[in-house]
């Protein structure tokens, strides 16, 4: 017998949308992350370059990797929630009709 989730999850109408969106978001962030690694390997001295307010590229890029992660997470959540509401409403509409 297969295990079921600990709590009944309810019907999720937006699984396909969320999966596709998640993969794209993951790819965008991965490219940003890879950029950091590549700069460090190919021209590490570039990381010393002062970019803004006396802060070097390494510091700015490092902080950006953290901040962009949060921004992408918020965008992802907002889009997922919107799609969940939309598809749930459509489903209710269908049931009524």
């Amino acid at each position, binding site marked *: *017998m*297969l*295990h*079921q*989730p*600990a*709590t009944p*999850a*309810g019907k*999720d109408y937006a*699984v396909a949308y*969320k*999966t596709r*969106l*998640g*993969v794209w*978001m*993951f790819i965008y*962030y*991965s490219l940003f*992350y890879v950029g*950091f*690694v590549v700069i*460090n*390997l190919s021209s*590490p001295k570039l*990381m*010393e370059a*002062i970019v803004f*307010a*006396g*802060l*070097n*590229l*390494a*510091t700015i890029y*490092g*902080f950006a*990797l*953290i*901040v962009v*992660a*949060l921004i*992408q*997470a*918020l965008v*992802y*959540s907002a889009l*997922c*929630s919107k799609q*969940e509401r939309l598809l749930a409403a459509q489903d209710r509409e269908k049931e009524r009709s």
Partner: protein
Amino acid sequence: MVLAIFLAFVIFVVALSFYLGRRTKTSSGYYAAGGQIHWGVNGIAFAGDYLSAASFLGICGMIATVGYDGFLYSIGYLAGWIVALFVVAEAMKRLGKYTFTDALDSKFNSRGIKLAAAISTLMVSICYLIPQMVGAGVLVEPLLGISQHWGVIIVGAVVITIVATAGMASTTYVQFLKGGLLIIFSLALVIAVCWRGFTTQPTPKGHTRYEYQSLAALEVDGKITIADSARKLIREYVDAASQTRFVSLAENGRQSWWKVEQGETGITLHETQSVVVTANGSKLINGAPASEGNKLRPVGNVELLRGQKVANTGSVSPIEMLAALSDKNTIVRRWKDVKLTDADGAKVTVYYSALTKGNQLMRPGIKFKVQGTPLEKLDFVSLMLALFLGTAALPHILIRYYTVPNAASARKSTIVAIAAIGFFYILTLFMGLGAMMNGVLNPADSNMAAPLLAHSFGTFLFAFISAIAFATVLGTVSGLIVAASGAVAHDLMDRYMKVSMDDRQKVRAGKVSAFVIGALAILLGILFKGINVTFLVGLAFAVAASANLPAMLMLLFWKHTTAKGITASVLVGTFTALVLIALSPELFKLYGLNPDAAPIPLNNPGIFSIPLSFITLVTVSLITRKKRLL
């Protein structure tokens, strides 16, 4: 007062677990807190789980000793949450019940997957437990004045009590409390650091400033002669790894160690600190017997700030602080160590200083040689890969997706976690650099950087920071032991071996497993004393990323994945990563062997073990799929 605050906090945490424990009667309650935790609470609890001893003690310590390279761990650990959120979070919630194994096995009901995933969960949890226990010992040693191994034993005992009483509900609320307090007090510490500003002559609380001496010397036919006749040269030594030369000198019957520096006009000897353990076991610190009054002097300071000595700048903004430290005319004095054996069999550790320019300090390159050999570059890539992919594969993080009621809550709690953890990781850069520039570091152990920085601001902040750091260890170890005991009692006993148990017996089996795993963690925590805890956690990430992530991703995104493919991938990933780590230079150092003799030249195994795990899954899945079709 330090002890009173510390003990009050620990007693409160244990009392909370007892209170919650009375409400845990079912296996769902024990392993998944009944699946009814609010996503906001769960998000901060995620942060509590994740911001372990490695983050607070290890990262701050590594930044304090090697600058920006330590911050790479902060970046990698946080970036890993992107994989968790975008790829794993909701799928895990939809597929699983109590453990990672449940999710992996959800489509197959395979005994092979149950066994392999339970083994990998156990291995990753144990790898992650080691640094937590090491961190616990380090913390308790100065607080309670007891030895490191007693510290580890106390933590182990308290954690076993917490886990055996309540399971996931208890650990969730402990983590929530601890995660929140850790961020608040870390912020307070960073504000205090900026408020104090810079000085090139820091004098930590309870210490007098020590001026290290330099001596002029001559080298004739390869032999060093000292101008000062009161000192007699005993021995010369060259550290093969760094090609740094040292001499030991005797003066009035007291032995001291000096670093040799070749200048344009001649040789200069720079005074160091040393710990000598003689053949009969007695310990000398800086040439005199170790005692309460004779310990290693705290170290770390800014030598020149933008090319100048400064008495005190007054408060600086966070941006100003980083900008000043990044300046190429800023010089920071960092401390390194070298271990050698004296002619009479005494074990000597020499702690010596090195000057580093700000522009080099504030970019990768001191620990991870991004400008080094191809192998050193590969090691850097391997680390960044494992950190990125490891988070989403950590069993004690994965099980937290089962404590919330639905997939949307899993997603929202992950976002709360990213916000809290990201903010904390930005603070680690300031705390680590603050410890480096305020002369508070213990040269023998980088793990205490953040608590010692807090101590320089007074005992109140020190007491709270230490208590929170201790709770950090308690919370993370609790979560890990719940995950590991779930692997044994739920995955192995209940589902793989099909031992007939009712719900109460399952909970009891989990608690007995927690006790055994806790005892094992105590033993390993004692054995791995002295290694930077974030380095050890980095290895746990590599094992998790190799063992669990390929199977999870392929299960979600490749329809040809078979049960045998998953089983093989998990086993190959786990054991390849473990073997590569066991044969790495850093572990050879731990064994007391020459690191250059290590058969695997990389310290971070991810670059090989992760792709190998993927290849294994695809190959075995294709083979077993063909057989099925035939």
